[in-house]
């Protein structure tokens, strides 16, 4: 592993995005648009304060998942991954470079959507804005890490875009957004306990509800961070220097 190569990789990915204004606009704009819609669908301040924060975690996660899985698939299919694998680049250099670049993009994305939510949309979370940003960026990073891992299971871009519904939607159904987890059948609740999105949503709910840092929130953050690292290491294991 080499920090210089990791940084060069992150810079390269950011340059690629800089040339692609439309993608950058969609990454930053879509969660904000969805939050605006959400605010006016519920149209009651109390309701929005309850539903808003968890979705502030989910929207960036979903978008970063799709962007990352397609970006890494392009790297695999375009031959640049094979080229890099013949060079002195560590597998983790590449993955951390992606995580760093998309983490920065996620920071921008979360910054914009939060600014809009806290001002125009009148979101009033009980917890601090700092914790809200930290939890939202962490869940976006979880999307990046899961997207990197998931791209190993796709051969084409058609398959890659379908990984999002396959990986993310079951988690979204089970994470407690639609039905509280305690009310689910035992086996469903058990599944939701091992799904990373559950913890991202719970963390955002905690920040929305509790004025102080809670034990639950600390556990959630630790679990999400652990999942990000695990997904990155597993993702590195799916990169092969030699292929058939």
């Amino acid at each position, binding site marked *: 592993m080499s920090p210089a190569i990791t940084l060069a990789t992150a810079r390269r990915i950011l340059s690629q995005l800089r*040339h692609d204004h439309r993608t950058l606009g969609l990454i930053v704009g879509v969660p904000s648009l969805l939050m605006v819609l959400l605010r006016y669908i519920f149209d009651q301040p109390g309701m929005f304060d309850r539903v808003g924060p968890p979705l502030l975690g989910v929207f960036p996660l979903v978008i970063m998942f799709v962007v990352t899985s397609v970006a890494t698939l392009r790297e695999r299919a375009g031959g640049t991954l094979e080229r890099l*694998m013949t*060079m002195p680049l560590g597998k983790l250099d590449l993955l951390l470079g992606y995580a760093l670049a998309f983490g920065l993009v996620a920071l921008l994305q979360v910054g914009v959507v939060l600014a809009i939510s806290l001002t125009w949309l009148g979101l009033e979370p009980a917890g601090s804005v700092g914790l809200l940003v930290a939890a939202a960026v962490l869940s976006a990073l979880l999307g990046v890490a899961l997207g990197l891992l998931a791209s190993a299971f796709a051969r084409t871009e058609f398959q890659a875009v379908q990984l999002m519904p396959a990986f993310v939607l079951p988690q979204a159904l089970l994470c407690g957004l639609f039905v509280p987890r305690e009310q689910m059948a035992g086996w469903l609740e058990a599944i939701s306990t091992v799904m990373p999105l559950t913890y991202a949503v719970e963390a955002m709910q905690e920040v929305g509800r509790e004025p102080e840092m809670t034990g639950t929130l600390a556990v959630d953050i630790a679990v999400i961070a652990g999942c990000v690292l695990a997904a990155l290491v597993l993702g590195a294991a799916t990169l092969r*220097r030699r*292929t058939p």
Partner: protein
Amino acid sequence: MMSSTSADPPQAAVSVRDLHVDRGGRPVLRGVSFEVPRGSVVGLLGPSGCGKTTLMRAIVGVQIVKSGTVTVLGRPAGDPALRRSVGYATQTPAVYTDLTVTENLRYFAAVLGASHRHVHRAIEEVGLRPHRDRQAATLSGGQRSRLSLAVALLGEPELLVLDEPTVGLDPLLRLELWELFHRLASRGTTLLISSHVMDEAARCRRLLLMRDGEILADDTPEALRARTKAADLEEVFLHLIAERREKSGPREKEGRP
């Protein structure tokens, strides 16, 4: 380890022994053996689908091989120590189409630990200076493949493995690239260059003629012409195929129970 490296003649940049590779359950390389002398330009010729790309992938160490050994610059192919000393350009240009020429080269240079000076030199050498700020997606096919070649040149590798680097180029550019290849060889670089165009063969110091996953001949262009008494290399190829058929024909019959 020590004995295997000292057993290789020191002048060989690449030494391949009895290499077998299967892809998709079917044999692609069937017992290939040859050597590439250091500082030479060796052409790898054969029809498309004969196994040239697979052989090159095995030399740069990205191909899973079934059996046999591939030694590159005295080390097993794919050895981490070789990642700075072997440059590889695939047939389809492996560059980031959404980056400019310079941005592509800067990134790969950073990965290789090569300096900015190398970036400018590589752009210069492949003649992309007028296009250095253009996005790779807007380049023509030939320009993009020259960009891919420029990436392979970064860091002055000791061995260059180039898969069809001159496809689709106009004759003048092709000539310039071949001059570049010979200039690099005169500085001590070894080049293994594949092509399916016979007229490029004459520009190589040695030729490896491949067909159906086997090496038909490994010799200088002049020697091949003299041996087969053929006027051009197209004819040499036909002659060698016929020669191989005659040789292997009766043996195959004997081999069957």
